[in-house]
C-alpha cells in the first residue's frame, strides 16, 4: 500500500542518479563526438517539427507573393535589371582580373587559390534562447554538409556549421558570444580577432594594440588564418574605436555586414578541410642521440 507521504529517500536517490547521468552526458557531449550518431538519429524526429513551426512564415511569404501589386513588380523588375547590368559590368573585368591574378601567382610561384563550391540553404528555425545565436538550416548529411563549413549571405560572412543532422544542420552565427573569427582590416591588412558579443548588431575586436591603424568605417574581411574560413569575405565594418588609457588594448566595436536577422537564404561554402601545418623536418645532422 502506498503511504500518503511519498518516501523522500527514494526520490532523493533518483535525483542523485539522474544528476550524475546528466553531468556525464554533458561532459561527454562537450568533449567528444561519441553521442553524435544518437543525437542525429533522434534528431530526425525534429525535422517535421521545425517545418511545422515554419508554416506561418511560409504562408505569409506565399500570401505576400500573391498580393504584390503589378506596379511593385514592375518597379522591382527595373531595380533588378539595373543591378544586373552593374554586376555584369563588374563580371567583365572579373574574368580579366582573375586571369591576370592567376598569371601573377604563377609567376611568383604562389599557390592557386581554390574556388570553393557552395550550397544554397534556407533558414527553417532560430534558437528560442535570445542569448544564443544559432539557427537551423534545411540541408544536412543528405547534401554532404560537414561540420565547420562557413556560411555566408549575399553581403558577408554569417557563421559556421556546428552540428550536422540528416536533413538539417545548425549554424552558429558570428555574433554568438562563443564565436570568434580571424579578420584583417581590408585597407592595410592589420590582423585582429572578431568576437561575438551576444548582440546581433555588434562584434568586438580583441587584442588590438592602441597604436594599431584601425579607424571607424574600416572594412574587416576574413583573413583565412586558422584555416576555418576562406580569406576575403567581408565580416563587419568598424563602428567605433575607443582608446582608454587604463586598458591594455583599444576597444574596437564593429557592425556585422551580413543581414543576420533578416535574410533567410544563405550559402554554405564547401570549404576544403584545413590542412594542419606541415611538420618541420629536422635536418639529419641535428638528430644526434644524446644518450649515446
Amino acid at each position, binding site marked *: 500500500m*502506498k503511504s500518503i*507521504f*511519498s518516501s*523522500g529517500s527514494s*526520490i*532523493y536517490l*533518483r*535525483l542523485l542518479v*539522474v*544528476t550524475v*547521468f*546528466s*553531468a*556525464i*552526458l*554533458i561532459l561527454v*557531449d*562537450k568533449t567528444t563526438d561519441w*553521442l553524435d550518431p544518437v*543525437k542525429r538519429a*533522434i*534528431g530526425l524526429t*525534429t525535422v517535421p*517539427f*521545425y517545418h*511545422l*513551426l515554419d508554416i506561418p*512564415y511560409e504562408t505569409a511569404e506565399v500570401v505576400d507573393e500573391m498580393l504584390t501589386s503589378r506596379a511593385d513588380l514592375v518597379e522591382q523588375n527595373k531595380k533588378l535589371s539595373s543591378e544586373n547590368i552593374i554586376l555584369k559590368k563588374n563580371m567583365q573585368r572579373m574574368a580579366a582580373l582573375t586571369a591576370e591574378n592567376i598569371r601573377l601567382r604563377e609567376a611568383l610561384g604562389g599557390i592557386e587559390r581554390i574556388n570553393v563550391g557552395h550550397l544554397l540553404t534556407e533558414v527553417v*528555425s*532560430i*534558437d*528560442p*534562447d*535570445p*542569448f*544564443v545565436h*544559432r539557427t*537551423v538550416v534545411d540541408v544536412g548529411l543528405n547534401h554532404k554538409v560537414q561540420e565547420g563549413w562557413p556560411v555566408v549571405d549575399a553581403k558577408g560572412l554569417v557563421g559556421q556549421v556546428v*552540428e550536422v543532422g540528416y536533413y538539417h544542420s*545548425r549554424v552558429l552565427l558570428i555574433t*554568438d*558570444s*562563443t564565436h570568434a573569427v580571424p579578420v584583417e582590416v581590408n585597407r592595410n591588412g592589420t590582423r585582429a580577432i572578431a568576437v561575438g558579443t*551576444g548582440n*546581433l548588431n555588434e562584434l568586438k575586436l580583441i587584442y588590438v594594440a592602441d597604436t594599431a591603424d584601425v579607424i571607424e568605417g574600416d572594412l574587416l574581411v576574413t583573413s583565412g588564418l586558422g584555416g576555418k574560413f576562406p580569406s576575403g569575405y567581408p565580416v563587419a565594418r568598424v563602428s567605433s574605436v575607443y582608446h582608454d588609457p587604463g586598458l591594455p588594448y583599444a576597444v574596437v566595436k564593429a557592425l556585422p555586414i551580413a543581414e543576420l*536577422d533578416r535574410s533567410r537564404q544563405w550559402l554554405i561554402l564547401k570549404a576544403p578541410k584545413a590542412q594542419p601545418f606541415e611538420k618541420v623536418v629536422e635536418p639529419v645532422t641535428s638528430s644526434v642521440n644524446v644518450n649515446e
Partner: protein
Amino acid sequence: MNDNSSGWLWPFILAVFCALLLELWPLPEWLAVARPEWMALVLVFWVMYQPYKVGVVSCWLVGLLVDIFKGDFLGLNAIKYAVIGYLCLTLYQRMRMFNLLQQSMMVFLMLGLTKLMSYWWQERVGSVSDVLWFLLPSLVSAVLWPSMHHMIRRLNHNWHM
C-alpha cells in the same frame, strides 16, 4: 483526479508536445527574452496532480527531448527539469493547499532556482549573457501559472480524465 486511472498519459503527452511547440516558436528578440517556460509549467502541473506517475525520471526524459530539439548539450535541460520534478515532489502536498497566488510564488521560486542552476552549468560549458534578464522568463511563467492551471484543470475535467 484519480491517481489509479491511466487516462493521464495522453493529455500529458499532448501537453508536452504543445509546450515543445511553444518553447521553439520563433519570436522577435524583444519578446523572446520574456518567453515563459512552458515545459517547466506543464511539468509542475503534472507532478502536482499525478505525483505517483510523473516524477523525477519522467521530467529528466522530457528534458533530454528538449535538449535534442534545442540543440543544447545533452543533459543541460534534463538536469534542470529533474530538479523541478524533485522540488515539486517534495512540495506538492503543500502546493495543493495553497491558493493560486501562493502557488505562483512557489512556481517563481522553483523556476528561478533551476534557472540559476542551469545558468551556472551553461557558464561551465560555454555561452552565457552577462545580464540578469535570464530570470525574466521565470517571472512571466509565475504570472501565467494561475491561468494555465485553470485551463488544464478545465480541459481535464471536460474530457473526464
